[in-house]
């Protein structure tokens, strides 16, 4: 080349040092800038509060008597059966839409440390989800207990009654872990359809299938390890035989998610983006 070639000197300097904070700002911008994120959170909250209240209404409007062992605080959270899927799907989409649009390559060009990107994405999404979930479970609790208390016999409990606070916070944690399971499956499978199928399979289909297996196959001992079975122990008042205690159950569920995350991280480094 000729000696007159200009030597390029950039005049634009970064405002911050690169690293974990910058990636966190970036992932927060990604989450808050999609209207679909807002709507999915709203649907999740609506499903949980609405179904929880409906279940409370249904339980107290029948003729069959309500036993004294009734888990008034935890019963409305049967609604999580449906809303866990909404929040899990959002977790899936957070990552698979980056793959389907090609955005993931822009992301990894900007931040080549792929594990850092996935970890920060999970932390930011998990934090937002937990905030939304806590608000949701508290509203669900107060709405459903008000409904349970509307008759002559007041079945509802207060937040200060035994286990109630653990159940309400625990339900929010369960929702958060569901969301993170979605993120992990999305990272592992990269395709929206595959990840949502896996999510529904783990949370819905596996527990149902278990019911049709012979009892002699130690069915119940195995079933307690399933993600949703184990995780939902967090809203139980009394621990049943062949079930985990509330926190142990939630830990087992979180363990499933951790395994999926580690597998996703390994593949993220091995595969071409």
């Amino acid at each position, binding site marked *: *080349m000729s000696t007159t*070639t*200009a*030597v*390029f*000197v*950039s*005049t*634009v300097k*970064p*405002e*911050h*040092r*690169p690293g974990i904070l*910058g*990636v966190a*700002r*970036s*992932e927060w*911008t*990604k989450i808050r*800038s*999609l*209207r*679909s994120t807002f709507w999915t959170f709203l649907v999740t909250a609506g499903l949980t509060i609405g179904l929880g209240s409906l279940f409370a209404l249904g339980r107290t409007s029948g003729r069959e008597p309500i036993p004294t062992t009734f888990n008034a605080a935890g019963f409305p959270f049967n609604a999580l059966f449906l809303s866990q899927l909404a929040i899990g799907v959002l977790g899936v989409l957070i990552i698979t*839409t*980056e793959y389907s*649009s*090609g*955005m993931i*390559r*822009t*992301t*990894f*060009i*900007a*931040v*080549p*440390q792929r594990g850092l990107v996935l970890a920060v994405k999970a932390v930011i999404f998990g934090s937002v989800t937990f905030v939304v979930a806590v608000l949701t479970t508290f509203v669900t609790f107060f709405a459903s207990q008000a409904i349970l208390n509307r008759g002559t016999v007041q079945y509802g409990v207060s937040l200060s009654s035994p286990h109630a606070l653990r159940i309400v916070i625990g339900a929010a944690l369960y929702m958060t872990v569901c969301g993170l399971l979605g993120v992990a499956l999305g990272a592992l499978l990269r395709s929206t359809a595959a990840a949502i199928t896996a999510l529904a399979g783990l949370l819905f289909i596996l527990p149902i299938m278990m019911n049709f297996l012979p009892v002699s196959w130690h069915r119940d001992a195995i079933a307690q390890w399933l993600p949703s079975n184990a995780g939902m122990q967090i809203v139980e008042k009394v621990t049943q035989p062949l079930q985990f205690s509330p926190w142990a159950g939630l830990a087992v569920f979180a363990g499933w998610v951790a395994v999926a995350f580690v597998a996703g991280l390994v593949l993220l480094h091995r595969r*071409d*983006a």
Partner: protein
Amino acid sequence: MIETHELTKKYGDTVAVDHLTFRALPGRVTGFLGPNGAGKSTTMRMILGLDAPASGSVTVNGTPYRQHHYPLHEVGALLEAKAIHPGRSSYNHLLAVAQSNGFGAKRVTQVLELVGLEKVAGKRAGAYSLGMGQRLGIATALLGDPGVLLLDEPVNGLDPEGIIWVRNLLKALAAEGRTVFVSSHLMAEMALTADHLVVIGRGQLIADTSVADFVASASTGRVRVSSPDSPRLRKLVAEKAADVSPIEAGVDGDSPTFTVSGLPRSAIGDLAFHHGIVVHELTSEAASLEEAFMELTAGDVEFRAQDPSQPTPVQAAPVAATRKVLKP
């Protein structure tokens, strides 16, 4: 500077990039040319650390891409237009990318103005045309004001005004001393934009040459001669030249013409002057750049439609036998 050494990528038994060695130097536009499926995009992804090579190495400014601390400050890349969530505005898209490397909203506004998207910055990217998507991709590449730019087919989907804009932008960026590495399958576009060419076919290097040399190599060495006294001039030329074509009648009152190979233009002109013959035209016949590109990459095209003018299927020419390797 981008430097690859024996860079190789395999997908199963298929070799996508085959021991590719080249350098893209600062201060000039290097065109990365090859037919569809030649391995251009794979090579670009390996440069950016997205795909891992099977063997060989590649560095940007002397360092493997993934080891850079401020990647966007070193290299700006456009791989696909519209590689953006359709529900996100281009402003937020650029902000998210900028923040990951420590840049802020001020820089986002600057690049939006630079590519002319400031008026639609708040609109969902899903509603963008392909051309707007390309502009957004170029804005993303320029965010970190990098010294190296990598652009994969940046003029795809642009209107003529957009194509000229990209052409001038790339030249201006190179004139500032940046390394500009731009892929295309359009030879004519590269001839207008690039200073240097790296041509690949089936993953292998075919040519690494300046555009001027590439154009020169495309010339056939034939000279076209037109004279009112063509028969006499042809007879004189035929005594000295190896190959002279029959005379064709002139069209629309033009003089009859014939072509000569093996004799330079100057010799034919001198000969005509010496014998007092009037000459109306004396031109070197250059093959078009497309023809030169086609000739160079013959047999290296991965997907080929059957030539409709041929009654029977045509076999691709043997690769090794027909390939000319041009070196700088």
